[in-house]
């Protein structure tokens, strides 16, 4: 039982990282219909930035500063690379974001250097006892931070006109413009938020062992998460992210005993298997909105 609980909590912890990442993807998707493959690079850049800043100003200052700086970086990318592509086919734009990812990542790599870099977080691998199980503090922090971020985002989209405007922009940019919505600002805003979220997620990923050049790969975990949750649903991103984390963790804990023939490391692809099954039943994920069509 405590094995199960521990596994579950670990899953929720890493799941909350995936949720942050997934939120970034979803926010960009909601306003542009594009999956931005540049998110992994922003995540890596965020973690690297904190590893430099933390030494100067301390972790708790470094994180928000880095999030803002990465948001600005994302803004810059949006401005120079994505803005000219407004109205162009989304798959072309998606490939462009891959190009951006390569560029940002290679440049960031140059700053990682040979040694693994540390972000200087105060939690390390310390644990606390919670409900009788040992839980790593950093997982608690991740979970709580994600909860706060999600709450803020929800409130923002609920109480500002921006949320609806984003969706309008996503579905029909010309219509949105005609209503007086500035498509450019909406794009910029979504890229900036997504960049900030990616940076935050990057820091959390790095708290365990540090930043190396492979860190970005984790961002791909957001893909099954957003599909599970539904591409355009913020709530879905959170649910999907947590589900991916938990599935990964539980499969890792039990599959070796239950179904060893699936091979070690099946846990890593289990989210994709789950995604396949869920999509067969719900073609738009758990909370995604259905494409509306009639003749």
């Amino acid at each position, binding site marked *: 039982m405590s094995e199960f609980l521990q596994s579950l909590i670990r899953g929720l912890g890493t799941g909350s990282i995936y949720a942050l990442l997934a939120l970034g993807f979803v926010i960009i998707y909601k306003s542009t219909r594009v999956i931005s493959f540049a998110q992994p690079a922003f995540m890596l850049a965020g973690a690297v930035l904190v590893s430099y800043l933390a030494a100067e100003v301390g972790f708790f200052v470094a994180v928000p500063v880095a999030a803002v700086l990465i948001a600005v970086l994302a803004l810059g990318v949006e401005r120079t690379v994505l803005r000219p592509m407004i109205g162009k086919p989304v798959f072309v734009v998606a490939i462009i974001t891959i190009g951006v990812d390569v560029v940002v990542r290679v440049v960031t790599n140059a700053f990682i250097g*040979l040694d693994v*870099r540390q972000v200087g977080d105060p939690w390390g691998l310390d644990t606390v006892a919670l409900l009788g199980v040992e839980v790593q503090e950093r997982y608690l922090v991740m979970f709580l931070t994600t909860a706060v971020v999600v709450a803020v985002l929800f409130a923002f989209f609920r109480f500002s006109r921006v949320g609806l405007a984003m969706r309008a922009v996503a579905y029909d940019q010309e219509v949105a413009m005609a209503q007086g919505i500035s498509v450019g600002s909406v794009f910029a805003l979504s890229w900036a938020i997504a960049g900030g979220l990616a940076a935050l997620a990057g820091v959390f990923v790095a708290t365990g062992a540090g930043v190396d*050049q*492979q860190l970005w790969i984790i961002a791909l975990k957001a893909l099954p998460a957003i599909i599970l949750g539904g591409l355009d649903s913020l709530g879905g991103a959170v649910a999907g992210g947590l589900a991916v984390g938990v599935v990964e963790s539980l499969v890792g804990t039990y599959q070796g005993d239950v179904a060893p023939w699936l091979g070690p*490391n099946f846990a890593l692809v289990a989210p994709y298997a789950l995604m396949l099954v869920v999509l067969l039943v719900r073609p738009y994920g758990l909370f995604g909105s259905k494409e509306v069509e009639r003749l």
Partner: protein
Amino acid sequence: RGGDGAAPAEGKGGVKVDFGVTSEACPQTGHSDRGCIYLGSISDLTEGPFKTLAVPITDAQKAFWKRVNDQGGIGGYDVDVTSYVKDNKYNPQIHNQVYQEIKGKILALAQTLGSPTTAAILPDLENTQMVSVPASWTSLWGHEEVVLESGTNYCLESMNSVDYAVEKLGVKSVMAVHLPGDYGDDAAAGAKIAAEKRGATFSSVVTQTGQDNQGGAIDAIVSGKPDLVILTTGPTDAAVIIGQTAARGYKGKFIGTSPTWNPGLLKSPAAPAIKALYFQSAPWKAWATDTPGHKAMRDALPSVTPNDGYTAGWVWSYPLKAALEKAVANKDLTRAGLLNAVRQLDKVDYEGMLPSGAGKFSGSPNDGVVRQSLIYKPDDAAPTGVTLVEDFFVGSTAKDYKFEKPCYQ
């Protein structure tokens, strides 16, 4: 056109040459009176998983051959290792492509990094008699004539590690946690042989690189509770595994191979666990050691952050230098001539960096293979983060082991 059928020609000083040797001077060495031997390097320089090792390896080789040139070159030739350096991104296909690009212009490969990548060009290396220096320590190379391996391999190194742990740490159960492929599998194979010989229980877990991919390995260690884990992963993987298992109450020991280590880990949250539980095995001594070879290396690389990638790149270069010298002495600096020279190498002068007797390429693999390795442990004060605990030794398993085929296929 196409093809590459350069006919042997007469080079400087009556030496027979074909590929990658010119009587014009090297573009960068500034010795206009000498000819030039071009060597290629194919390494993981930007995006691949071994970049952090590959870059210092490549740098060290550059420094090594510069020193050779400064000391008078090789029989009237300078050696150029900078004109044909290529990035393989640790991808076999790219590796082959860039190899094809440069192969007509070089005499030998000063570096071919990685095993699947090198495997992609191995038939071609054999067909064209292209002598090459690997950047990996797998036991397969001991059986490939054209590949000049230095020091012991993962397999024998891990045997020694298990022997050491059984003797000095009283270990009774061993688990190999490793990346798939020649690197991890080779080490696991060695660990298994030693564990069985020593009557310890053995188990093996394959893991994949990436910090978030270590859950399975961590679960396996925590639930299996082996006394010793032989770790062959990348550095951050290792940090995650050691840190998390320790956090979950694991108290056994870890011994990792050289690519598993990075001094940066001592600053990670896992550092306390690492200091308490981790040992590092090595095929040769660390950066700061006091041998003529080490000293020459440090002099040649005055302003770098110490890293044992440099040491590796430097050590690996000695046999090629010896072979070139022998080939020039034989007046045959063709590819065939160079391979012939390799076949005549009884020993290589590693300037003290490897035990004497190392570098025997003339006999059978079982004769030539180096069996000594060392054990280090983490130490904040040491330049590359580790300090010696056991000097060159050969465990009883490795000593008796008949090295007749690669440990892992």
